[in-house]
């Protein structure tokens, strides 16, 4: 099962923290795959991966600017994991986030094949 599929399964199961974690992982991994092909640095840094997502959009390589999504997911996973705070995202909102990152994940998977 891919990381993205694990995120979808967690959304279906109502496991919000796991869903957020895996949506973040899936989106970052896809952005890194696309960014590396374009020579955009990511350097194992969450903020640089988010900046790379923005740059990919600026270069018209992806339709959606995922920077705010990556920043939001990064903060949500920290709040949930470290602080034990209930994430403010419900299943419907998580589904919408999954929809936003789906195209980037698909594009990265195509390139990886």
């Amino acid at each position, binding site marked *: 099962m891919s*990381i993205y599929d*694990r995120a979808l399964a967690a959304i279906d199961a109502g496991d919000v*923290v*796991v869903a957020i*974690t*895996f949506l973040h*992982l899936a989106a*970052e*991994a896809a952005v890194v795959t696309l960014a590396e092909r374009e020579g955009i640095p990511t350097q*194992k*840094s*969450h*903020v*640089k991966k988010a*900046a790379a997502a923005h740059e990919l959009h600026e270069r018209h390589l992806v339709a959606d600017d995922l920077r705010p999504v990556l*920043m939001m997911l990064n903060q949500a996973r*920290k709040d949930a*994991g*470290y602080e*034990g705070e209930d994430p403010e995202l419900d299943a419907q909102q998580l589904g919408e986030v999954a929809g936003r990152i789906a195209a980037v994940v698909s594009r990265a998977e195509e390139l990886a094949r």
Partner: protein
Amino acid sequence: MRALGADGLDLLALDCRDAVAWQARLVRDRRRAREIEPAEVERATRLLLERAVAGGAEAVALTGSTACGRRTSASDLDIHVVGARPSLDGIEIDVDVYATTSAVLFERLRAGDDYVQWTLRFGCVLFDAGPFRAAAVELVASEIWPSPERKLAQAGRLLDLARIVVESGDRDAAVEQARGAMTTLARWLLLADGAFPRSRAELPAQLRAIGADDVAAILEDCIDGNPSLDELAAGLALGRRLAAGVRGALVRHG
């Protein structure tokens, strides 16, 4: 230059005894932050401080490894804000902002949260309109010890999450998640043993001092080593056994 006590409470008592002493701490902390921060970290700190204050924050402190001058390649810039979370736009380094209201700050202090105490004991207080000093006065008067139980619950959540990230096969993400989980586990072990946990880079030495050598080794590997997924899985399994109390003998009492 005054020496910092092991748990920071002695200096905190001196610093918060009156408004003049507290103001002197702010001056000292701001200078220390300028001296120890690399240029790009200092720029980010300054921007976040300005944005937080402009947004009505009541207090701002630099915390974590940066505040101790012990940054590693894996360190975020940790900022504690009493007030609204400042925008991260244009910030080019990884930042972790811990933002609460003043009411939540005191609620967490009284509930035994160790991060709030860490800020007061070891953080660089960059701005304070009152809540940090008031919290410091309360901490010194009450001598509240951070709750090991609270930390154990946190460690349990993070160990569970780290296990499934390791299983996903994304090694970089697994190392990061395991590092967070093992850091939290280390903090629990130390609090349970009566030692106040310092910054992440200082934890391995603190762990060895209480006899938790194997946790120290795993944590070191997660900070600046190159652990395999199998090694991470083994380390997390040890952490879960400890958290479950199966190997509680690692914590040396008396």
